[in-house]
């Protein structure tokens, strides 16, 4: 089946969700009023848009994640063969992880891991 099954699953998801939403659309008539479309903020009218600048702290987490994510990607092929290659593979990966760990410690020291 391979990739076809993925397509089938996507179709299933779409059918499922769309079916539900459409059923609701068909049978429910909502009332309209000017407040309904306003953003909810505990019952107080919103004054400013949420689409404004956020803090840089979020970026740092995404960045760290990205780096370690890439590392993780390289670990997968390593993991499947480590048993047959043996101790050399362990040494190789130790080196790899060690280098990244330095970066991690650096980030820690710089305070990048403090949440904002």
């Amino acid at each position, binding site marked *: 089946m391979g990739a076809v099954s993925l397509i089938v699953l996507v179709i299933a998801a779409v059918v499922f969700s769309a079916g539900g939403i459409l059923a609701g659309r068909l049978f429910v008539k909502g009332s309209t009023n000017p407040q309904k479309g*306003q953003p909810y903020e505990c019952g*107080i009218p919103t004054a400013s848009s949420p689409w404004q600048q956020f803090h840089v702290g979020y970026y740092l987490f995404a960045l760290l994640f990205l780096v370690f994510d890439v590392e993780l990607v390289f670990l997968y092929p390593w993991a499947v063969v480590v048993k047959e290659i043996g101790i050399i593979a362990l040494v190789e990966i130790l080196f790899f992880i060690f280098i990244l760990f330095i970066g991690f410690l650096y980030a820690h020291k710089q305070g990048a891991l403090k949440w904002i």
Partner: protein
Amino acid sequence: MIEKPIQETFPGQVHNMPGGTAVTGKFQDIINWARANSLWPLTFATSCCGIEMMAVASSKYDFSRFGFEVARATPRQADVIIIAGTIVNKMGPVLKRLYDQMADPKYVIAMGACAISGGPFFYNTYSVVKGADHIIPVDVYIPGCPPRPEALLHALLTLQEKIKSGLTREQIRNELKGT
């Protein structure tokens, strides 16, 4: 305005729900059944009655038996507002906005004397709304100060009955006038 015509019937009786007058199909019945059995309240409590509302959620009374326990903090996902407590003039617009922002169908229960009419704060106060139904339509009134938890459960059951009957507020009012 409190000088309402006095009904001849004595209170404390259970109102007989008119059944079968409104023509509803089987499908509508099923939907009404679902709606009646899945009333998610908005977490909305302004004062003392809110504590009794919490008591209803607590283990001893446990409104989760009816499927009411999914209290939603956002009006978008809630089905019923239980106005538990006094509504003052400053709160009025907020309540209205919350009600407006709820997705249809939506129901309102006025819990306690304050929400029904201002209760203890009816006279001589400059800031209390004399009844939440001045702001939003109310489906079920439950008097008391505060109503005991069983009374709130009773109100919820009454609301369920109403939903199952499929009648609108106006129809109910007319029915009541007829009796």
